[in-house]
C-alpha cells in the first residue's frame, strides 16, 4: 500500500487542475446565464462577449466566476457535478429499486457489458485460433500476419452501419451481435499477437526435451506451448478486453443510439446535456477498470496456481 500515496497525490493534482480549468471554460456560459437573469455583465452584448478573450471576461466579471461551477449545461462540469450525476443515474436509482430502468446507467452499462463480453469471447476465440494456426502452419503465418496488421488500420466505425445491415440480412436481429462483431474485430488482434508470442515462447531446448520423449504434436501443445503462453495470454486478454469495450462503444456511438453507454454519450450530445456525456464516460471508465481488474486477479490466481510468479 506504499504505492497508494503517489497515486492519490497525482489524482489530487488532476482534480485540482480540473477545478481550476472550470472557471475559464465556463465563464462565457456563466455570463450568458447571469445576463438572462437580468444581471449587469461586462460587456452587455452577447456578441461582444464572444469577441473578448476569456481572461478579459474573467477580470471584468470576477463576481460571476463562481456561477461557472453550477451551470446546468457547462462546457466543463466540475468533478462534483459529474459525480452527483453519476450517483443520480446509478446508486440512487438502485436504492429506489429502479437499477434496471432505462434511465439508469446500470442498465446501459449492462447492455454495453453484454456486447463487450460477447465481442471479447468471439475475439479471444478468433485470436487464439488464428495464433494456433499461425504457429503451426507456415503458410498461414506468411499470409495472415501482414493482413492482421492491416486489418487494424481499417477504420471500423466506417464498417459499423454496413455490419448492421449485413447481419440483419443474414437474419440476425438486434444490435448486440453487430456490436459484438465490431468489438471482436478490435479485440482479436492483441490476443492474436500475444498468443503467437506466447506459443512461440518455449525455447528450442524445451521443444527438444519433448522430442527426446518422442512426444506427439498434441502433447507438445498441451504440455508445453499452452502453459508457456499463459503469462502472454493474460497480458493480451487485458488489452483485448479494453479494446473490446472501445469497440462496443464505437459501435454504439454512431449506430446504436438505442441503448448502451455509447448511445448515452450520443444522446447526451444530441440533447446538449454534457453532464449525461460525462457521466456515461465515467461509467465506461469504471467498467473498463472493473473488467481489467477482474482479469488481473484471475491472472494472479491462475499463475500462482501454476507456480509462475505473477
Amino acid at each position, binding site marked *: 500500500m506504499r504505492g497508494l500515496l503517489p497515486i492519490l497525490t*497525482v*489524482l489530487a493534482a488532476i482534480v485540482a487542475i480540473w477545478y481550476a480549468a472550470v472557471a475559464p471554460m465556463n465563464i462565457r456560459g456563466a455570463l450568458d446565464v447571469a445576463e438572462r437573469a437580468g444581471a449587469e455583465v461586462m460587456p452587455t452584448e452577447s456578441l461582444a462577449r464572444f469577441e473578448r478573450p476569456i481572461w478579459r471576461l474573467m477580470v471584468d466579471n470576477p463576481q460571476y466566476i463562481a456561477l461557472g461551477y453550477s451551470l446546468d449545461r457547462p462546457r466543463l462540469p466540475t468533478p462534483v457535478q459529474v459525480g452527483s450525476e453519476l450517483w443520480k443515474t446509478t446508486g440512487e436509482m438502485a436504492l429506489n429499486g429502479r437499477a434496471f430502468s432505462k434511465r439508469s446507467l446500470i442498465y446501459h452499462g449492462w447492455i454495453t457489458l453484454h456486447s463487450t463480453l460477447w465481442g471479447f469471447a468471439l475475439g479471444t476465440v478468433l485470436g487464439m485460433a488464428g495464433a494456433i494456426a499461425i504457429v503451426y502452419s507456415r503458410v498461414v503465418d506468411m499470409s495472415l500476419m501482414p493482413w492482421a496488421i492491416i486489418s*487494424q488500420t481499417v477504420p471500423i466505425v466506417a464498417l459499423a452501419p454496413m455490419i448492421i445491415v449485413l447481419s440483419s440480412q443474414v437474419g440476425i436481429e438486434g444490435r448486440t451481435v453487430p456490436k459484438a462483431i465490431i468489438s471482436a474485430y478490435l479485440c482479436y488482434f492483441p490476443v492474436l499477437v500475444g498468443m503467437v508470442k506466447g506459443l512461440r515462447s518455449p525455447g528450442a531446448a524445451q521443444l527438444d526435451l519433448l522430442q527426446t520423449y518422442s512426444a506427439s504434436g498434441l502433447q507438445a501443445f498441451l504440455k508445453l506451448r499452452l502453459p508457456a503462453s499463459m503469462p502472454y495470454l493474460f497480458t493480451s486478454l487485458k488489452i483485448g478486453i479494453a479494446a473490446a469495450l472501445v469497440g462496443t462503444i464505437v459501435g454504439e456511438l454512431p449506430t446504436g443510439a438505442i441503448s448502451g453507454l455509447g448511445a448515452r454519450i450520443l444522446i447526451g*450530445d444530441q440533447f446538449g446535456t454534457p453532464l449525461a*456525456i460525462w457521466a456515461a464516460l465515467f461509467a465506461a471508465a469504471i467498467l473498463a477498470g472493473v473488467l481489467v481488474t477482474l482479469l488481473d486477479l484471475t491472472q494472479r490466481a491462475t499463475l500462482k496456481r501454476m507456480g509462475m510468479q505473477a
Partner: protein
Amino acid sequence: MSWLVFALAFWIGAWALNTYLANSRWRGSLFVRVLVPMLFGVTLIVLWEGIVRGLGVSPVILPAPSTVAQTFAASTDILWEDFRQTVLKGALSGFAIGVLAAFVTAILIDRSAFLTQGLLPIGNFVAALPIVGIAPILVSWFGFDWQSKAAVVVVMVFFPVLVNTVQGLRETDAMQRDLMRTYAATYFDTLLKLRLPAALPFVFNGLKIATTLALIGAIVAEYFGSPTRGMGFRISTGVGSLSIDLVWAEIAVAAMAGTAFYGLVAWAEKRVTFWHPSHRRS
C-alpha cells in the same frame, strides 16, 4: 453462379500455390515473403467479387471490389481532399503533438520516482479507456475543423506513448546503470547515453499503437461535426446517400494510409533499434 465457382477455384489454386511457396526453398526470399501475403489479399478480393456477383448482392449493401476500384479512380480529387483534411491535418498533426507531449512529459516525470509511481498506474488505466467517447466533447470545445480532430488524436495517442516511454526509461538493467556510476556520469549523460537508447524499443511500441489509434480518432471525431470534407465526413454521409462505393473507396484510402503510416514507423524502428534482439538478423 459461375462467378462463385471461379472464385472458389481461384481460392483453392492460390492456397495451393501459397502452400507450395511457403514450404519451398525460396521461402526466405523477399520476393516470396511479399508474394504470399499479396496472393492472400488478392484471394480475399476475388472471393468478395465472386460472392457479390454470384449471389447478386445489391450494390447499396456491398459493392463489388471492381465497382469500388472504378469509383476510386473516378473520385481521386475528392479522396485526396479528404485525405488532406483527415490524415494530413487532423491525424498527423494530432499524432505529432500527442507524441511530443507524451515524450516530454515522460522525461519530466521520470526525474521524480514519486511522480512516476503515481502517474504510471493512472496512465496505464487511462490508456485502457474508450477515449474515443470524448470526441463529442472535444468537437464542442475546439470547433468543427481539423483542430478538434487533432485534439481527439492528441488525447488518444498521449497515454500509450507516455506509459511506454516511462516504462522504457526504467528498463535499463542494474549493471548498465552501475557502469554509468563508475564513470561518475551526470544525469544528462546517463539519460542521453543510456536510458534514452534503452527506452527506444518501448517508445516504438507505443508509437505503433498510436498510429492505428490516430486514424480512428480523427475519423470518429468527424462524425460529430466537420466541414464538408474529410474521410469521416464522406463515410458518414456516404451511407446516408447510398454512395456505398465511395464509402469503400474511403475505407481503402484509410487502410492504405494506416498501413503506410504503420509501415513507416516499423521501418524507422528497424533502423533505429537495429541492435535490439528482435531485429537482429544472424
